[in-house]
């Protein structure tokens, strides 16, 4: 299994359309921390204080990193069928569930690694920015540790979600389109359409926000929200894996 995961990670490193969004997310995360600290105390923004640290740590991760990891693994996963590299993949490991499990594991590992890197970068940037503004750094602020843990965990789940979605649809544009539609349209209108506003907190994006920002009266608790999101990832990844195991692998017509 280790060699299969290693092959998947080499695919990531050698595919620019996959790793560029990850690198961009890390850079945007650092810029977000700098922008937040630079505009603190201006235009109605609260002034910098030790209590700002958890928000700074979340600013670098969260949706930016989740979206980038999701996109990267949709590209890698659906791209296997677009470029027919799936032929090589399944000749090398014909037990398809093993090959697909390795892909899902590599996607989750990518999320963990990028999430941890994003938090390390934001911690360093936050420390420098707070120090420059003569604000004491207090790592024991409520929510600081939670942000450092939540960002990598969420990114790992979004990685598995992206890989699963790519396997399920086998079409990069369709999978990216569906993810965008879901995030920007479906989650907003489904609760209203079915006249069940309370259902929105059980949807993936809302669950991810609850994990990142903690409980609020309208949101699930962080633990429940994490389980809900893990459930979505498991269902999508499981469906993608099951379909990949059953489907025939196409080659060019002879």
């Amino acid at each position, binding site marked *: 299994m280790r060699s299969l995961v290693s092959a998947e990670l080499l695919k990531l490193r050698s595919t620019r359309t996959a790793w560029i969004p990850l690198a961009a997310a890390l850079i945007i995360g650092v810029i977000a921390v700098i922008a937040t600290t630079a505009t603190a105390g201006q235009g109605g923004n609260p002034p910098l204080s030790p209590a700002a640290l958890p928000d700074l740590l979340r600013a670098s991760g969260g949706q930016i990193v989740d979206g980038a990891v999701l996109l990267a693994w949709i590209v890698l996963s659906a791209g296997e069928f677009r*470029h*027919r*590299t799936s*032929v*090589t993949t399944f*000749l*090398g490991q014909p037990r398809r569930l093993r090959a697909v499990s390795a892909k899902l594991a590599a996607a989750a590992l990518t999320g963990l690694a990028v999430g941890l890197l994003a938090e390390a970068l934001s911690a360093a940037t936050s420390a420098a920015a707070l120090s420059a503004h003569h604000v004491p750094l207090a790592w024991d602020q409520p929510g600081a540790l939670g942000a450092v843990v939540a960002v990598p965990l969420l990114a790992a789940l979004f990685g598995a979600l992206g890989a699963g979605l790519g396997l399920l649809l086998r079409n990069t544009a369709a999978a990216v389109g569906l993810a965008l539609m879901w995030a920007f349209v479906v989650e907003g209108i489904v609760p209203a359409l079915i006249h069940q506003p309370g259902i929105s907190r059980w949807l993936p994006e809302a669950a991810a926000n609850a994990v990142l920002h903690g409980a609020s009266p309208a949101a699930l608790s962080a633990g429940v929200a994490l389980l809900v999101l893990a459930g979505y990832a498991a269902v999508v990844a499981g469906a993608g894996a099951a379909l990949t195991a059953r489907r*025939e692998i196409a080659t060019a*017509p*002879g």
Partner: protein
Amino acid sequence: MTTIAVEALTKRYGTVTAVDDLTFKLAPGRITGFLGPNGAGKSTTMRLLLGLARPTSGRATINGRPYAELRDPLRHVGALLDPNVFHPGRSGRTALRIAARPARIPGQRVEEVLSLTGLASAAHRRAGGYSQGMRQRLALAAALLGDPETLILDEPANGLDPEGVHWLRGLLRRLAAEGRTIFVSSHLLAELAQTVDDVVIINQGRLVAAGPMADLLEGTGACSLEAFFLGATSADARPAHPSPAQARSLS
């Protein structure tokens, strides 16, 4: 020892029967040409052999096992089904390193097959910029990665220039002389006639002839493989449909 065995293999897609009760066996140390008109079921048979498609009925085995049950399959079977199975943004070397990793094939072997296929100087270039012939050589390099005893090659000469075809013929002969089983499909009958020892001919998914090429030509009085092939697959020729016991073994 039989390396490839196809037994009563059938594959249907809806109402279309792509492979119809096909039976044949191949033995090591021989090059077997797999012939048939377009749509005869050659590529489907090869995909069934390699576990990329599932048979409707029957069995296709390599060394007595379905491909999916082989341990470290790349070390036993090398396959070239389609030269366009490489990500266009990855270099030839990286594409092979990715293919080698699941079987824990070392980087040194990647360099060996790059040299063997004449791609060493282009290995750093992206596969998307390769010519058709270079992609064919890269796919052949991937098939050779595990130094396998069986090679399954679908139209390996497509896109190769005359020098490349000559080189391929020599390579296949050398590999067969080492005791490997080579199963190769092609429409280049004149070229194939210079390369193969045995032939398996199918039409509309059914076996129409199988055996040592020299015996088949002698038995029918055909002056060439092309004449024999055209006679066996013409509209007037009824596809033979031998039972497994009747199907002629090449082993």
